[in-house]
Structure formats: structure tokens, C-alpha cells
């Protein structure tokens, strides 16, 4: 059996994937003795760049289906990506209770700095921008915005207290490490205000030949995984559907 | 007379400098002593280049260093020539020369570049890059630079060591005149007793970090055991006023009751009031019992013997001339016996006109 599986994943999946993999290893303990699983987190853009340059990744979890599609077009993955969940955006602050706060209220003076991920390349950043635009406050808020390289760093900007509010992934707010008293004080953004965040994964050419990778694909579709994903605030699509290309 | 008060106990590694003295700060003072005796250290102390604790340096009532008081070098107005060539490598020869001059208030400028350049023959060096100067050229430049800083005190550490003899012949009288005219006191270190004889008014002898003797040059030279003479010749000084050349080109130098004939007067260094100072090696003085004719030696001076001392396997005969000046003659024991020399005996001192410096 292959004894090593290398997974590259977008930052928003960080906490959910830990649980998923723990279950995965427990589930296939007999089939996969001595398996070591490495996960490398990063921005979807950087990871897909690295895959193009021959990075030794077997599975790629992207925050946006766009990246798996591009890789498939370049013949680096076996398919255009399986959508396993939809990401959700939340408005969150470590200092203020954001429950019930509408995007339009961000113009208030108490919100000096608002952190979002870089819309140029981070999927969550682009969706945050869309929401702000559709709320009609983008141009008013633009001078308050600070940008994180990826969604995890965006969360850090707020967590350090330097930014007053952040628009980040629900999955990050739902993780254990965020202190409980502030963790609940978030406001979900309406999915209708932005294009969907289609979380998709794909096997790379080298991963396709590996048994553990194939088993992981099977595990991703399992109920247990769906449960974990839901727990971390991901919205689940209907029973696993291949995105047509 | 201005004075330089120095008091210091300074431990430099294994060496200790112990000075507690008042030096006359006028005219030219030579520092003489064996290598490693502390001459450069003393100059550095005076200049304030070393923070010696609890030292006292007072120059002409300016307390340069006393207790907590410490005037930094750049406010002491000292002209310094370092023992190791000390040119600023990033400046041109000309910029080096004028570095100090530009920092002197115009009203304090008494020495002007044009004169110094002429006297030290620096003209042709000024346009050369610094790295292309030979050792002697560097030394002349450093000397000129110190002079042009128009200081109130000159401290020169072996300033003539790399000069060729022609340059030396030209520069020493210039330095003499300069000190006399400007009144800037000058201290210099030298290992060349001839330089000292020619230039110095006072002599400071050092040994093992201490000043062992300080006196006027005349007094110092009267002592045949003066370390100045170690490895070189005993010299007496004769002070007199030169008169007109005679038709033979000889120059008479007159003191009270004596006349010394000189071959010519190019070399002697003038000192103040028209006087010149002549040095006469004891080895150049012969003795006879009566005047001698048909001899090329022209100075035949009546004198009487004041002292006879053995000196380095020879005899040193100290003579008093008619005008009271002291003259010394070095004589073999054989000659002393032949002439039957005794104290008080009148003799004729023979000195070649040409041998007088």
C-alpha cells in the first residue's frame, strides 16, 4: 500500500479537514497501515501554481471550483473537480457583537477598519466584495478596507484587534480555537448577495494512482464527512454531483 | 614665559609614564631618548589623544586637562605631526595641506599656504594623488599641514626622519625662523643628535617613562655623559654675532673677547638678536701649547683648562675661552700626556674654520 498521502488545501478548510482526516484514518485503518497524511494549506492560487510546476500533491481542495477547472484544462488533474460543499461568509468581530448587523451598518464610525481577503485572488475576498457591492456600500466602505492575503490571515487581522470587523469564512468562526464568547457573535451573509463559493476537490495525475487518494474520495462522499462539513458551517450540495464540464 | 605643566601617572600595558614637571613652552624643545622610552606617549598625553585619568595638562594658563575638565584636541589648537605618516587618504595632497588652515579663524592665520608651499617644496606634490607620494614627500606634506593649522603649540614626532639631507638643510633653518617669528613653541622628537644641536633651545631627556633631565641645550651639551652623545659626538656651542665677510670669504663671528673664523655662513642656524649659534665637535678641537704657524687651522684660541675627565677611553678637556664660553676637546690619553695637560694650564685651542657647523 502507498504509505504517504499529500494533500494541498485552501485555508478555509483548515479545521474541517483535520476532523475529516481523523475520521478517514480511523475508518480505513486496516487498509492503510502506516499511512502518513500530510496537509499543506495555502491559497488556492498558489497551490494550483505549484501543481502546474510539478508539486508532489495528490489531492487538491480548492476554495473555488474555478481553480480545479483550470487545472483540468491544463491536464494536471483527472477531472474538473468535485463540489462537496458551499462556503459561507460571515461578518465577525472579536470586539463587537455582530448578530443582526447589516452590511449597510458598517459605515458607522465605530467600525474603523474592515478586513476582507484580497478580492483579486482570494475567492472569499471576491465574494465579500460582491456582497458589499450588492448592499450598495462598497464605495463608502472602500477607504475602511484592509486586505488579507487569504481568508485565514484576514481572520488574524481582526483577531489581533487591529481591524474592527472582518468578513471571513464561517468555517473559521466555527473552529474550536476561536474563543467561545466571541465565536457566536457573527452574522451570516445572505448567499444571494454573492456568487456561490463552490468548494471542490480533485485528484492530481499522481494522486489518481494512489489507493489512499481513491479511498479519500470515497470518504468525502460519506455521511460522516457531510456531517463534519455541516458542523463547520459548510452548506452541502445535493448528493455528490459531478460538475459538468 | 609660557609654560607647559604636565602631571601624569599613566600605565600603558607594561609601560608606565610618570611625569610631574613644568616644561618651558617657548622656543624649540627637543625630546630625546631611546626607542620605547615614552616620547610619543608624552606627546599624545599633551595633545589629549589619550584619556589618562587624573592627569593634569596646563598650557599657558589654559587648563587642557585638570580633574573633570578635559578640553578635546580640536579645541586645543595644537599642530601635530604623527610618527607614522598621518595623511587623510581620501583627500588630495592639496586638501590635506589646507585641511587645518581652512579651520583657522582668518584673524589667527599668520602662516600662509604660499610660504609654506615654497619653503617645504610642496608645489609639485599638490596635484598628485596621495597614494603616489613617496615617504619623504608625505612627511613634508604632513609637516606643512601642521604648520598651516596655525596652532598655538607644535608637537612633531620625528618630523624629519624621512627627509633627504638637502631637504633637511633647507627646512631646519626655516623652522627655526618660523618659531622665532611667530613665537609658537615647538616640541619635537628626534633620534638625530645633529638635528637637536641645530634646532633645539631646550632639551628634555627621557628614559623609562620618566623625564631624567630638562635643561637648556647649552647646559645639556656641557655634560659629556649626556645620552644625547651616546653613539654620536660631543659638541660645544659657541654664540656670537657674525660680521662682514673678509676678502677671503671668511666670516668672523664675534663674541666678547673672541673671534671665530668660519668658512662661510650657510649652515648655522640664526637665533634671536642677530646672534648665531655654532656647534663645535669636541673631536674637532685640537690643543697646542703655543700658536702654530704654517698650519691650515685658522682658529687658534687662547684658553685655559678647567677640567679634565676621562671619557670613553679618551680624555675630555674642558676649556674656558677668553670670553668665558665653554669649549670641549676630545684628546687621546697619549696626547694629553705628551702635552702634559693639567687643570688651569693655558693652551691654544685649534679649531678648523670649516669644521664649525
Amino acid at each position, binding site marked *: 500500500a502507498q504509505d504517504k498521502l499529500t494533500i494541498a488545501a485552501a485555508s478555509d478548510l483548515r479545521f474541517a479537514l483535520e476532523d475529516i482526516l481523523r475520521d478517514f484514518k480511523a475508518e480505513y485503518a486496516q487498509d492503510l497501515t502506516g499511512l502518513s497524511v500530510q496537509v499543506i494549506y495555502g491559497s488556492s492560487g498558489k497551490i494550483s501554481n505549484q501543481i502546474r510546476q510539478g508539486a508532489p500533491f495528490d489531492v487538491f481542495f480548492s476554495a473555488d471550483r474555478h481553480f480545479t477547472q483550470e487545472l483540468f484544462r491544463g491536464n494536471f488533474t483527472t477531472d474538473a473537480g468535485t463540489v462537496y460543499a458551499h462556503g459561507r461568509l460571515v461578518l465577525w468581530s472579536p470586539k463587537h457583537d455582530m448578530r443582526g448587523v447589516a452590511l449597510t451598518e458598517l459605515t458607522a464610525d465605530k467600525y474603523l477598519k474592515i478586513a476582507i481577503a484580497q478580492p*483579486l485572488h482570494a475567492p472569499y475576498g471576491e465574494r465579500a466584495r460582491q456582497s458589499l457591492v450588492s448592499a450598495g456600500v462598497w464605495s463608502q466602505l472602500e477607504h475602511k478596507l*484592509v486586505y488579507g492575503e487569504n481568508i485565514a490571515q484576514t481572520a488574524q487581522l481582526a483577531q489581533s484587534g487591529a481591524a474592527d470587523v472582518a468578513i471571513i469564512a464561517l468555517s473559521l468562526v466555527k473552529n474550536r480555537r476561536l474563543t467561545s464568547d466571541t465565536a457566536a457573535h457573527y452574522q451570516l451573509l445572505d448567499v444571494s448577495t454573492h456568487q456561490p463559493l463552490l468548494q471542490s476537490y480533485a485528484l492530481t495525475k499522481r494522486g489518481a494512482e494512489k489507493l489512499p487518494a481513491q479511498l479519500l474520495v470515497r470518504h468525502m462522499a460519506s455521511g460522516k464527512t457531510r456531517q463534519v462539513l455541516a458542523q463547520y458551517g459548510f452548506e452541502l450540495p445535493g448528493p455528490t454531483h459531478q460538475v459538468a464540464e | 614665559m609660557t609654560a607647559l605643566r604636565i602631571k601624569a601617572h599613566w600605565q600603558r600595558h607594561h609601560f608606565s609614564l610618570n611625569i610631574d614637571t613644568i616644561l618651558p613652552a617657548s622656543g624649540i624643545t627637543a625630546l630625546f631618548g631611546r626607542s620605547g622610552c615614552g616620547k610619543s606617549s608624552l606627546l599624545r598625553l599633551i595633545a589629549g589623544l589619550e584619556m589618562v585619568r587624573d592627569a593634569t595638562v596646563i598650557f599657558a594658563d589654559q587648563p587642557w586637562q585638570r580633574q573633570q575638565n578635559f578640553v578635546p584636541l580640536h579645541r586645543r589648537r595644537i599642530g601635530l605631526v604623527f610618527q607614522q605618516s598621518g595623511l587623510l587618504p581620501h583627500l588630495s595632497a592639496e586638501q590635506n595641506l589646507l585641511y587645518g588652515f581652512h579651520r583657522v579663524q582668518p584673524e589667527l592665520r599668520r602662516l600662509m599656504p604660499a610660504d609654506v608651499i615654497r619653503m617645504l617644496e610642496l608645489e609639485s606634490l599638490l596635484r598628485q594623488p596621495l597614494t603616489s607620494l613617496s615617504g619623504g614627500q608625505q612627511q613634508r606634506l604632513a609637516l606643512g599641514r601642521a604648520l598651516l593649522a596655525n596652532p598655538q603649540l607644535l608637537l612633531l614626532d620625528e618630523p624629519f626622519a624621512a627627509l633627504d639631507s638637502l631637504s633637511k638643510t633647507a627646512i631646519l633653518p626655516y623652522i627655526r625662523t618660523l618659531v622665532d617669528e611667530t613665537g609658537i613653541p615647538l616640541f619635537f622628537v628626534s633620534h638625530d643628535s645633529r638635528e637637536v644641536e641645530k634646532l633645539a633651545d631646550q632639551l628634555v631627556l627621557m628614559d623609562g617613562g620618566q623625564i631624567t633631565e630638562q635643561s637648556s641645550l647649552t647646559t645639556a651639551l656641557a655634560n659629556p655623559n649626556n645620552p644625547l652623545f651616546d653613539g654620536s659626538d660631543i659638541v660645544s656651542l659657541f654664540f656670537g654675532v657674525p660680521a662682514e665677510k673678509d676678502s677671503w670669504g671668511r666670516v668672523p663671528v664675534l663674541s666678547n673677547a673672541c673671534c671665530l673664523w668660519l668658512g662661510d655662513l650657510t649652515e648655522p642656524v640664526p637665533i634671536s638678536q642677530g646672534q648665531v649659534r655654532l656647534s663645535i665637535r669636541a673631536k674637532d678641537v685640537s690643543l697646542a701649547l703655543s700658536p702654530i704657524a704654517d698650519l691650515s687651522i685658522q682658529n687658534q684660541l687662547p684658553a685655559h683648562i678647567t677640567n679634565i675627565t676621562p671619557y670613553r677611553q679618551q680624555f675630555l678637556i674642558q676649556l674656558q675661552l677668553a670670553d668665558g664660553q665653554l669649549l670641549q676637546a676630545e684628546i687621546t690619553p697619549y696626547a694629553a700626556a705628551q702635552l702634559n695637560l693639567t687643570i688651569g694650564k693655558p693652551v691654544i685651542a685649534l679649531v678648523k674654520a670649516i669644521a664649525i657647523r
Partner: protein
Amino acid sequence: MTALSAADWQAIQLTLTLAFYTMLLLLVITTPLAWWLAGERRGLSAFSYWLRTLVQTVVALPLVLPPTVLGFYLLLLLGPQGVVGSTLQQLGLPHLAFSFPGILLASVLYSLPFAVQPLQQAFEQLGRQPVEIAASLGAGPIDQFFTVILPLCRGGFVVAATLSFAHTLGEFGVILMLGGSIPGQTKVLSIAIYDHAEAMNYAAAQQLSLLLLLFSFVVLFVVYGARRKTGSL
């Protein structure tokens, strides 16, 4: 070649300003610091001796921390909840996170060793004599600095200036963390390039990189060329 966007030009301008001020500040700060560090060791008390070693070590530490980590801690420190940030706010001043002064401070801190070390080395190799000569010719400390130390240690200053300028040009992690990529204020060139590259906007990334390289090349070439002509020593 597509024309650079206005935002790109803004990033370029910001970066140059930042690098320039950083270099300037560093030269001003590190010159006395390096002089002190390079001072005579002989006859130093044990205390002064170890104090110097300590300072020298601390000065070198910004080198060691990964820039993003350094940036994160600076964010904690300079933000409204940090010691520095909150103090500033109590004084009625803005805190330093996400501001130009903030990233300037960070750049200075981050490039500190690159300025101190070459200067210190130059001062150590200089020795005492040139300064002594200048003092003997009536030059006071300031005069000595500008007419002797500066020209004689020109090599050291050029290295210090080049390293700190260039290092700031290329700085990324610290500023990313602390600056928040605000266009015109903290979005410097390196971040702009990174953003283009991540957005797979390779043409723009490449164009900006090339521009940066070309500019730096010209500046460095001129600096080094001129330096060698006059001969730094």
C-alpha cells in the same frame, strides 16, 4: 506590453517613498549606534562590554524572525489593543496598524541589522588615526564626521544604504501583516506583484517585476559605478 494600471503606479510610488524614508531613517539611527558598537574595546568595564554585546545581538534579531511572524507581533503591539497602539491612542494619536508610519516603523526595524552591521564593520576597520588627525587640525566631532568618517567609510555607508533600500523594496511579509494592503497607503509593490501572480495575472506581475528589477539595476549600477570610479578607499 500592457500599460500599468493607476493602482500599480501608486504602489510603485509608495514603495519608493517607503524604501527611501526607511533608508534615510536607518542611516540616521544606525550611524551613532554603529559608532558606539564599534568603539574601543580596550579598557572597557565588563559591564559596558556585555552591554554592547547584548545590544549588538538584539539589533541582529529582526533578521531571524520570519517576516510574517514579526509582522504579526508588530500588529499586536502597534494595533489599538497593543501597548504602543493604545498609548498612542490615549495621546489622541492614531494607532500605527494599517498606516504608512506603521509600515515605515516595521521596515526600519526589519532592516536594522542590514544598516548597523556594515557600518559597524566599516567603523571598526577605520581605526582611530584619521579622526585623531582631523581633531589635531581643529575639526570638531560633526566636522570630523562629515569630512573624515563619512568619506572614509563610504563603502560601509553605500552597503548599508543599498542593503536597507533594496531590502525594503523587496519586503513583503511584515508589511502584508501589518499594513493590510491598503492601496496608496500600505499596498507596496511587492504585494501588488504577489496579488497579480496569485490572481494568475502573470503578465502584470511580470511587468511590474521587470520594472522593479530594471529600476533597481539602474540605481545600483550607477551607485556602484560611481563608487568605483572615485575609488572608495
